[in-house]
């Protein structure tokens, strides 16, 4: 196959703010081999004209400070350094960044909702968001991506000592949208991070959530749900880098696929470095393939460089609806379509319960229902 197997830890070493440090991907690289580059509309080689076209609208909790800043703001790019070509392209191309600050010792009284609305897929747009949760602060954040765009961005979640950040990121784009995004959380001592990713719409969405720890006691839960329809490519690339002792991470992503050319990619990389004794981590990906012609690639990678872990495991399974489940429900008079709906609903239900914002739970549930009714 010509693919080299390299240790994860070296694979993820490269980071730079300079686009020139990353060659234009050819599709043969490990980190690009699943992504159909021709459908990136030039995000990977900078060939598409840049005109912006994604409007950022913030509805903030009263305790939270929101700023729109220029490229020169010293706070940007501290928690995260771009780790691939598109990420670096986004970092060197964005014009305005949004900075959300939750002041120390403050608990935001309601979710802060950031709506990113695309106005067309004819030109490229680049964005940058920094969410800084100061020591002992707490906040819930919603990122709501809608409309149509060719959009690349970097999101930095800087969660300081003892702080808690819960994020729900919805990728609910129109059918022709292309979105390549990095979400990086940097966790301080005893910081808590909860991420819930829901990807439903878009022609191609490639979202790379990653977590790093700066001190012990960091705790990250990364949860994701996706529903891939005919012709869609939805890719989630997780990276949790345990480099300090006694931190915890849990990754749970579940997806359903239906229709010709529906393609889901899930990469779950977890590194436990030699220094990261006492790490507790588990990652899981499950795919429910509902029709012929849909394809799920699921690749969990766990690299453990210390013998002193509290727990480390991974699981990945992709399969069809279980005939026995359907039979049992049908044997009680429930028609096939309804039985199928119940089982798929059940597949996602326990995940959806974890969404921090009740109104979003309803929205995600009804989005799943709408997918099933297609």
């Amino acid at each position, binding site marked *: 196959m010509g693919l080299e197997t390299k240790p994860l830890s070296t694979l993820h070493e490269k980071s730079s703010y300079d686009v020139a440090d990353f060659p234009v991907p050819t599709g043969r690289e490990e980190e690009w081999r699943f992504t159909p580059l021709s459908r990136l509309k030039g995000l990977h080689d900078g060939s598409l004209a840049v005109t912006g076209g994604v409007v950022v609208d913030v509805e903030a909790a009263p305790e939270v400070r929101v700023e729109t800043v220029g490229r020169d703001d010293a706070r940007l790019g501290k928690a995260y350094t771009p780790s691939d070509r598109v990420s670096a392209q986004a970092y060197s191309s964005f014009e305005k960044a949004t900075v959300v600050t939750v002041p120390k010792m403050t608990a935001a009284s309601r979710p802060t909702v950031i709506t990113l609305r695309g106005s067309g897929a004819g030109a490229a747009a680049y964005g940058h968001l920094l969410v800084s949760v100061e020591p002992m602060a707490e906040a819930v954040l919603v990122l709501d991506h809608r409309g149509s765009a060719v959009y690349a961005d970097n999101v930095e979640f800087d969660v300081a000592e003892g702080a808690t950040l819960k994020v729900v990121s919805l990728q609910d784009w129109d059918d022709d949208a292309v979105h390549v995004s990095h979400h990086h959380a940097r966790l301080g001592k005893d910081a808590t991070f909860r991420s819930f990713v829901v990807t439903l719409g878009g022609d191609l969405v490639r979202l790379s959530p990653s977590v790093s720890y700066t001190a012990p006691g960091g705790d990250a839960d990364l949860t994701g749900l996706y529903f891939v329809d005919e012709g869609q490519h939805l890719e989630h690339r997780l990276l949790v880098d345990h480099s300090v002792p006694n931190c915890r991470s849990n990754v749970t992503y579940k997806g359903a696929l239906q229709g010709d050319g529906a393609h889901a990619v899930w990469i779950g990389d977890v590194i436990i470095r030699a220094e990261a004794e006492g790490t507790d981590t588990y990652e899981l990906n499950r795919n429910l393939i509902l029709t012929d012609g849909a394809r799920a690639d699921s690749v969990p990678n766990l690299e453990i460089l210390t013998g002193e872990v509290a727990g480390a495991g991974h699981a990945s399974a992709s399969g069809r609806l279980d005939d026995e489940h359907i039979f049992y429900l*049908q*044997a*009680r*008079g429930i028609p096939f379509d309804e039985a199928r709906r119940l*089982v798929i*609903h059940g597949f996602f239900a*326990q995940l959806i319960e974890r969404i921090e914002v009740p109104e979003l739970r309803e929205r995600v549930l009804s989005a799943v229902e709408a997918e099933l009714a297609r």
Partner: protein
Amino acid sequence: MSTLEIRDLHVAVGDKEILRGVNLTVRSGETHAIMGPNGSGKSTLAYAVAGHPKYTVTSGTVLLDGENLLEMSVDERARAGLFLAMQYPVEVPGVTVSNFLRSAITAIRGEAPKLRDFAKELKAGMEALSIDPSFAQRNTNEGFSGGEKKRHEILQLELLKPKIAVLDETDSGLDVDALRVVSEGINRFRGLGSSPGEHSRASGDTGVLLITHYTRILRYVKPDFVHVFAGGRVVEEGGPELAEKLENEGYEAYTAKAASA
């Protein structure tokens, strides 16, 4: 008045023929016990009649009140009035008992019950079977013990009120208390539609086909007819006295006969 009529039923799993010409008629008001050794095809009969995709009917007919069940989908059979209590009820992740039962009742009755009526009905049904109310919010059969799964099957039986119930080894894996509770549920079902005072005879408008390996449950649920199953067909028929004979003598005589046939 309902009749389940099984005629010369042949069933295969893959290339292997399991049922070799089963004839059996169950009418409402009657309780039939099918007894037989392991591997005799008892469960195959139950699943084939219910329409499990693993089993292929190669010939024969199954009629419920004159309608050919074999031409129906699994859910159509259930809506026609057939119920199968399974030996190994299936765990359905993420689907709560309450949601599952409400969907089933809606399908069987043709309209959704009012939420309040449903809650009441469910509560009463669970109480009668000593099922903890918290089970309504648990995922269907997930993490249930063997006995809890069987009670849950009988709860469905009582709520869905089919015309004919096939109970596949509902007694297996039950302790004495659970066996009594489950048997009482079956007897309540048997008495459905009968006039008051007749409950002791339990001859209502429902029919029961009880599949079992042991005679134990027949002390609580008295059969009108006993059929001995061996080698994929009924090899002997009689009244309740036949069960006693099996209790004393076992299946050896029949398994030997089946092997030589």
